[in-house]
């Protein structure tokens, strides 16, 4: 009966492509384009704006990439991103505590955070396997609980490095720790390109490309294929002899590790380690970024990550300046909240093929 579906007209295909791409996404892309056009008109410096956008893209891209494995295995959007971030923070602080400096401290931080990410990821994956179907809400609260638990730990753990602890008490980590002398901008400064006001953090982008290539390659292996199948139709995968729980667990560990690396890359760009409540709200921007990029609750690609991060960070960096210059009113925060959460709402309410 669907035989004639093959003979779709070109118009239908176009309409389908638009429907596929999603109206909200078109609006956001249009809005960003408008910002780019407006910015020179209202007197903002376009190269600076573009550099800012690219910079922020390079900081955040891996955090957004951390969504991909879990979406692929059908665990939904990783609202539990803070758990991975915490592994990264442990790696970062321990690397400083152990006296690594410069570029070495960055790689030490990655190495140290890896076992934490694996252990926390295994626990988190085990939990999510027990509550299939309710992942997103519980992931959110696992993230929150772990962040508030670590708030206590940052105070109690026996850190001693004078660069990190409160000067007066001599113990308890500071809220913000400067990375100067450690891995501040180690990646960004590598092969950095500067043309006038335009500067491109080549190293960070290369690092992202490296990691993204790794994920891309993984998804082309036998195991990666199995993971995608588990997300696409778990019963099919089971009937084909795939161990669903193991695949989901692996995806969660991968997501957690990527979040750990992601926060380290973010810190090297930003120049500071932010502790305590800082990781709290880091999941939502990453989630909405990948959704803006065209992902849905159970489908995501690396292209979604790149487009989404660029659009999202573009809006976040461009709106304040353009708005300020235009109407002397900084509404960027409000716009960011409405756009990012609106996008998540759109994704949650959209009926997926499987939900039928």
């Amino acid at each position, binding site marked *: 009966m669907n035989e004639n579906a093959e003979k779709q007209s070109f118009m239908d295909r176009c309409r389908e492509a638009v429907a596929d791409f999603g109206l909200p996404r078109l609006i956001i892309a249009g809005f960003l384009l408008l910002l780019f056009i407006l910015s020179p008109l209202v007197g903002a410096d376009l190269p600076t704006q573009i550099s800012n956008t690219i910079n922020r893209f390079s900081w955040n891209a891996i955090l957004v990439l951390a969504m991909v494995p879990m979406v692929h295995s059908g665990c939904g959007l990783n609202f539990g991103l803070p758990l991975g971030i915490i592994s990264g923070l442990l790696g970062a602080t321990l690397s400083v505590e152990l006296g690594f400096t410069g570029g070495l401290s960055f790689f030490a931080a990655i190495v140290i955070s890896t076992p934490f990410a694996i252990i926390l990821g295994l626990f988190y994956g085990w939990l999510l396997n027990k509550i299939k179907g309710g992942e997103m809400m519980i992931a959110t609260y696992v993230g929150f609980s772990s962040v508030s638990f670590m708030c206590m730990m940052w105070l109690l753990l026996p850190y001693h490095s004078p660069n990190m602890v409160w000067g007066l008490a001599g113990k308890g980590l500071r809220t913000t720790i400067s990375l100067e002398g450690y891995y501040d901008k180690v990646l960004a400064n590598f092969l950095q390109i500067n043309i006038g006001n335009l500067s491109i953090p080549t190293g960070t982008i290369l690092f992202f490309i490296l990691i993204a290539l790794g994920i891309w390659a993984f998804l082309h292996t036998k195991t990666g294929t199995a993971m995608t199948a588990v997300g696409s139709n778990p019963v099919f995968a089971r*009937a084909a002899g795939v161990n669903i729980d193991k695949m989901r667990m692996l995806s969660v560990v991968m997501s957690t590790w990527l979040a750990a690396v992601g926060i380290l890359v973010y810190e090297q760009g930003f120049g500071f380690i932010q502790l305590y409540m800082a990781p709290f709200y880091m999941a939502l921007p990453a989630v909405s970024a990948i959704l803006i990029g065209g992902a849905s609750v159970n489908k995501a690609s690396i292209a979604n990550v790149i487009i989404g991060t660029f659009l999202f960070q573009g809006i976040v960096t461009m709106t304040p300046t353009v708005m300020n210059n235009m109407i002397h009113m900084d509404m960027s925060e409000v716009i960011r909240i409405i756009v990012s959460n609106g996008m998540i709402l759109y994704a949650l309410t959209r009926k997926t093929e499987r939900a039928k």
Partner: protein
Amino acid sequence: MADKASPLLEIKNIKKEFFGNQVLTDINFTLEEGEVLGFCGENGAGKSTLMKILFGMDVIRETGGYEGEILMNGEKVDFATPFDAINAGIGMVHQEFSLIPGFTATENILLNREPKKTNVISEIFGERLNTLDRKEMDARAVEAIEKMGVSIDRGMVINEMPVGHKQFTEIARELSKEQLKLLILDEPTAVLTEKEAEALLHSVRGMSSRGIAVIFITHRLHEILEVCDKVVVMRDGFVVKEVPAGDTNEAEITRYMVGRNVDTNTDHSNLREEIKKDSLSDSSVIMSVRNLWVDMPGETVRNVNLDVRKGEILGIGGLAGQGKLGIPNGIMGLYEAGGTVVFDGKEIPLNQPRSCLDSAIAFVSEDRRGVGLLLDETLEWNVAFPAMQIQNKFLKYYLGGLIKWRDEEAIRAVTEKYVEELQIKCTGTSQKAKELSGGNQQKVCLAKAFALEPRFLFVSEPTRGIDVGAKALVLDALKKFNRESGVTVVMISSELEELRRTCDRIAIVSGGRIAEILPADTPSETFGTLMVSQVI
């Protein structure tokens, strides 16, 4: 006022098409007040479609409505929704319970028809804020339960009730509707114990004496003979027999139920020559199943013993819900199962899908969209995935086997091969599976199994929901696969004639057990009798 002479319900020339398939043709029958009508026929005979028309279900209108007339008390009716049917006095008890689990029997009996008391607030904010009149509710529930004549605890919460009482709660709900004139019971005794079924039959007689007409659908023929005034037998969308219950017997009804159409007679002669007589010897058993039980909801299997011979096509038939689907699903590890399965001399551990697949046993599931396909992925993925995961096919190795890379070219090649071989209609091998028609999706499922190059193949309902042309193609492909590659095939199907045309031997499942295994050229009537032999 209705004419006294006109019957309560009159069905005139009802016809119904589903996507070009004629499922009901010229249905005619009448029902008097207080008459009990037994309705029987194989699955797919059109019983449930007819009931859906009668009850005004949405699905009928969504698929283009029906032809013909329904008259109640001599007046033409056309129900747009089930609510219209209910208002006209038709009640229906479906096979699946429609009850609120945390409510008591009383609350369920009067669901959304609760007697209410007005109060000050409701007069301002509308009648939904009326309070429930619990006393009146209890009284009405008691009345309905009395009418039914089977005692159930009206204060008991549905969750805690035995299955039978849930069924009775449903019936009481229908009886509590004052306008009720016609009650349709769809396999009401399927979930009841013998005693409860007895009580139900008694209650049906009681309803009839109160002037309520009952349409009683069941596979248990003795019940029909016991309680009904009239029997209507359907087959392939036709009413093949309408007879007073007193003038017939079980054997006759069975014969009408499974009696073949004229055109299949010719196939019958062809099939005889094709049957492998040599495989009827016990010498070469490839799979032996002992004491198998499977917990597949709605298709429970109990204590099945079955020997499958090397190189044959074994058919498994039976009515829906009797457990024939549970057998392959249980052996393949998709539902919890117990017992022993020996394949080619080695015992296969149950409840592990992988163990069967590793022994080169493949399965084409009856649930195409749910189990059989990755709807959102390409045909290539669908065809190649199991073979890739289980047999490491279509992979390229790098770094001394450390990296197993998907070999897209090999995958495309194998998909193209099967697209051609099975004549799968698609725009290309990278089309998404969900965009294909049912028949072509089924072919993809077959291709997926063929790509595994199995030694043994379970095929479950291979022709369900696909058009005639595709049916023939699918069955031919299976036969060819069996005869040319020497693969043993077990085919499960609800359509007896299809099994008879395709298989060497046919096992009939009834009540979760194998009733008997017979050569495929055994007369249909014999199979029909077996189908209803142990119905539960």
